[in-house]
């Protein structure tokens, strides 16, 4: 069983292995620079379904099924399914769990859900409470617009700091099985940080301090340096949020500039219509499962710190004038780890 080190990092005793993973992405993501990385892509937002909510559910289901297939396991061998999404009552995940029949722990961490589900999933596997577990999440541009913003066909311009919710999903199979796999070594749960940003169109600025805090805390707890990682991958800070992270981490004495990458800034890189980049649970999930984990397996990366970031506001809290509380969880993943 894992131990706590420093102020809040968990060091896994028998680091859970990532034995398989899968990613699903929509059209804009497919046309982005990482389009060829995703396992499954689709053109039409509805993906043959009647509603966008059903399409999102299908995305998450396909991600889970594909990851499961790659692992060679059957659904009844998976002891726990950790999932969440952006919709009210996390319906995408709940309905996927209904279909899969795997004991389900629903999570809400907004766009931080991928690292949140990996964190809890790794704890369950390392703790011996599950032999195999799946961590999954999804987001869909159209369902998120319905949930948080305006009707799709409403003709209003976006602000330059706005980000585009990625239509994407990812799933990871965590396992106590030993072998040559990427392993989850550390997990640093985030604290909720609120620096008083209340602009819901500038989520990167709201989340950057939370990411900075979790990353710095992780370094302090583990005694590692940013340079010990081949990449420190944040979830969806976007272009501007990433600048803020680098600036404020450096003001606290930590230079992240060489190793930091942001899934939100990468996923649509070069597409001006996307303003500051991508966001949503699926953004970091699909980039982790589509790009970073394969790079770890290929050996191009040895060790990454995956820090998905989430804004924990709701449309109601925003209308009532509340600021945006944010969170980031860090997961240290590396290859070649031996017990």
């Amino acid at each position, binding site marked *: 069983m894992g131990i706590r080190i420093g*102020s809040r990092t968990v060091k896994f005793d028998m680091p859970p292995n990532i034995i398989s993973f899968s990613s699903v992405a929509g059209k804009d993501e497919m046309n982005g620079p990482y389009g060829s990385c995703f396992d499954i892509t689709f053109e039409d937002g509805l993906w043959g379904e*009647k*509603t966008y909510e059903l399409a999102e559910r299908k995305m998450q289901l396909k991600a889970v099924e594909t990851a499961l297939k790659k692992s060679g396991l059957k659904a009844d061998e998976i002891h726990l399914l950790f999932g969440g999404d952006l919709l009210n009552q996390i319906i995408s995940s709940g309905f996927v769990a209904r279909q899969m029949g795997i004991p389900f722990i629903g999570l809400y961490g907004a766009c931080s859900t991928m690292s949140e589900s990996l964190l809890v999933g790794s704890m369950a596997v390392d703790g011996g409470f599950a032999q195999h577990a799946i961590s999954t999440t999804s987001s869909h541009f159209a369902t998120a617009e*319905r949930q948080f913003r*305006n*009707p*799709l*066909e*409403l*003709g*209003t*311009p*976006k*602000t*330059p*700091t706005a980000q585009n919710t990625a239509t994407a999903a990812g799933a990871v199979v965590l396992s106590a099985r030993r072998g040559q796999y990427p392993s989850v070594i550390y997990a640093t749960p985030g604290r909720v*940080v609120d*620096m*008083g*940003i209340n602009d819901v169109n*500038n989520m990167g*600025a709201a989340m950057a*301090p*939370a990411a*900075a*805090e979790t990353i*710095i*805390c992780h370094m*302090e707890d583990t005694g590692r340096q940013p340079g010990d990682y081949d990449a420190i991958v944040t979830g969806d800070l976007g*272009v*501007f949020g990433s*600048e*803020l992270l680098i600036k*404020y981490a450096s*003001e*606290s004495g930590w230079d992240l500039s060489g190793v930091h990458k942001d899934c939100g800034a990468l996923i649509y890189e070069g597409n001006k*219509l996307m*303003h*500051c980049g991508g966001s949503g649970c699926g953004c970091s999930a699909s980039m982790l499962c589509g790009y970073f984990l394969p790079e770890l397996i290929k050996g191009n990366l040895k060790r990454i710190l995956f820090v998905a970031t989430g804004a924990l506001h709701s449309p109601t809290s925003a209308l009532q004038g509340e600021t945006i509380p944010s969170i980031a969880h860090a997961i240290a993943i590396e290859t070649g780890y031996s017990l």
Partner: protein
Amino acid sequence: MDIKKNIDATNYQEYVKRAMPKSHLFKECLMAFIVGGLICVLGEALNDFGGNVIMLDEAGVNAFRSATLIFLGALFTGIGIYDVLGRFAGAGSIVPITGFANSIVSPALEYKWEGYILGVGAKLFTIAGPVLVYGISSSIIVGIIYYIIGVI
């Protein structure tokens, strides 16, 4: 590590405001002027057409122009063009009556899946509702003031 000890929240908010990417005010005003202007030119053309070609009286011309523009706004919303226009035209396509049509038709399309009563019926005015509430309320207040001035 407590980030709040390292970063002062007020300074942070000020820095974010200063450093965040800004809208290109001039470019956006220009686009709004051009697109909004063109919609108004279309309105004028409809006026002339209604008055001079199909020989409508003044009330008829007003109704003809408004109804045609609303129809076009709804049509272009339905075929998925109005939101693309709005992305770069901004106020130029929001303020004219076509924008009003867009604000009603877009929720109608959006919420059809939740049914005609609690979906379309309940959500139809989510965007246009405030405009109607305060538009009608202020017209009543202005009407009362107008009446009082008339009596005096």
